[in-house]
């Protein structure tokens, strides 16, 4: 197998998935659009988190900071200076990327005890949440509301399906980026860092620099998702945007799908978010929390019985079928 091979069949697969997704608002029933938007948003956030949390193997629990950075930056710019969120989202992305690189530098420069990175980012995430709930500039716990202007120039649309295409474009960008990077030199180094930090140090990879890069890129993409979410909901508020729940769900979906793979962060939310929404809308009144309970059980079951996630499980099943059929792939 040559190095170009994976790209040759991953790219068409990705393009097919994306084309199929463009058709959904046309073919699917109208009531699905909201669920579809949330699903794609989660898929987008999962793919973004996966860059640092999965591929580079740095378990970051602080991504709420980056969602919030994107949402608050673009919203504040639009409310105070009238800057369109189309520009504001990149400002938010830049803020988040700087934060991400800074956090990575601060917390990864020493050899800390295992899992310290998770704890530092968790604490920073909580600090961010508390800060957003206190600072009056950020609207404190009430949050900020966006005026409903309804112009696409201000990143606001009358039709939900337009939001759908916007988040789909985001998703396409991060998915293609992931595919492009996965087998590139950067991707190989990042996976090397994840699998064996000492060996990577031995062959002269500047580990810290790659971790910082992964964190910066991941934070940037995540922040764009924050801006989208704010524009879609037309408000920003600490609990939704800076709380831990969102991050933990992102991590959960990614791990269930297959953390560190290309397709896992896509498959996880595509299965779980609609499932959760269905459970919540049908049984949510009688049994609140049922969908989260199901998420938890799935996560536990996947980690226990299929530690590579659903994607890894599928790969195993596939290779077993190949063996059974006697045509082992070379």
């Amino acid at each position, binding site marked *: 197998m040559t190095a170009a091979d994976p790209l040759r069949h991953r790219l068409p697969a990705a393009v097919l998935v994306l084309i199929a997704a463009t058709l959904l608002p046309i073919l699917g029933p109208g009531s699905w659009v909201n669920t579809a938007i949330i699903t794609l948003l989660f898929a987008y956030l999962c793919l973004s988190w996966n860059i640092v949390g999965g591929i580079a193997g740095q378990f970051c629990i602080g991504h709420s900071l980056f969602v919030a950075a994107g949402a608050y930056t673009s919203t504040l710019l639009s409310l105070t200076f009238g800057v369109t969120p189309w520009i504001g989202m990149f400002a938010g992305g830049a803020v988040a990327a700087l934060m991400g690189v800074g956090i990575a530098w*601060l917390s990864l420069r020493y050899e800390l*005890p295992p899992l310290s990175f998770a*704890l530092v980012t968790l*604490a920073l995430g*909580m*600090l961010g949440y*508390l800060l957003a709930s206190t600072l009056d500039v950020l609207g404190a716990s009430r949050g900020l509301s966006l005026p409903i202007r309804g112009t696409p120039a201000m990143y606001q649309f009358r039709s939900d399906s337009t939001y759908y295409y916007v988040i789909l474009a985001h998703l396409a960008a991060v998915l293609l980026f992931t595919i492009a990077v996965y087998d590139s030199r950067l991707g190989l180094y990042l996976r090397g860092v994840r699998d064996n930090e000492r060996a990577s140090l031995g062959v002269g990879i500047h580990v810290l620099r790659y971790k910082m890069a992964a964190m910066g890129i991941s934070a940037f993409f995540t922040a764009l998702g924050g801006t989208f979410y704010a524009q879609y909901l037309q408000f920003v508020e600490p609990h939704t945007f800076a709380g831990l729940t969102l991050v933990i769900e992102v991590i959960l979906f990614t791990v269930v799908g297959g953390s560190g793979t290309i397709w896992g962060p896509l498959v996880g939310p595509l299965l779980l978010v609609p499932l959760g929404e269905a459970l919540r809308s049908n049984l949510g009144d009688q049994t609140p929390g049922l969908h*989260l309970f199901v998420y938890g*059980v*799935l996560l536990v079951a996947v980690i226990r019985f299929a530690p590579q996630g659903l994607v890894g499980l599928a790969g195993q099943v596939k290779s077993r079928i190949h063996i059974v059929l006697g045509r082992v792939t070379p």
Partner: protein
Amino acid sequence: MPIDIIAQATVQGLLMGAIYALVALSMTLIFSTCGLLNFAHGDFMVLSMFGAMLLFELTGADPYLSAPLLFPALAAIGALTFTRLVRPVLAGGHLAGAQLTLGLVFVQQNMLLMLFGGDQRSVPTFLSNRHLEFLGVILPMPLVVGAVCAVALSILLYAMLMGTDFGRQIRAIAQNGNAAALMGIPIRRVQTLAFALGIGLLGITGALTVAQFSVTPSSGLDFTLVALIVMVFGGIGHFIGSLVGGLAIGVAEGVGSLMLGGTAGAMIPYLILVLVLLFRPHGLLGER
């Protein structure tokens, strides 16, 4: 600010800190012997609180009476969790273990939510509404009793760790797992017992403090975070450090919220966690 209010906040913080310390000690016990970062730690305590509540509603039993029952119950749950879920997963690394416990958080929280609803609850004990007045400081009795019991249990745990074969084996595994194995220490059995003991202690702690904290199914994460902060503050795997750390964090939180107001005060522990991790990664009392 009048001195008696600060004194009140300090003493109340110390009492809370004693409880925090015990929760952190059980987390340290589990982390250092089994290598598991348990995000569901506080949820096991909440589980015990709801257990005490259920026993009260069914039989009218005072939570203080339920505590000795909840110890073996939670210990058994802990042992099962460890042998069936945690140990097989930990073979794949620390990270897989931590992720597993995130799943357990979802499972436990929402199971309680489905069974009991999301309202804040508390259970009366025979000490509710009683207060202890001491040098002008007024303290709720349930808090005093909870703290005193927590200190007593911490001392017992410490004595066990320092003075028994089992305690020495736990410390040996924490300090050098391979060397401990070479001594012929039955690693798996000691780990299972340590895990069960840690969760069992949460069973007692939950029952003893259910009168003090009003609790919801989602309270667990708060206790987990405090325990994490205390554990890191005192140096991971450092038992005395966790004790001192608990008291320090309790006072910092109590006095901090008094001086700076609720939210800003709540930020102090996290700030401490970040600073300690970044600049004293082995804890304030840890060596190296």
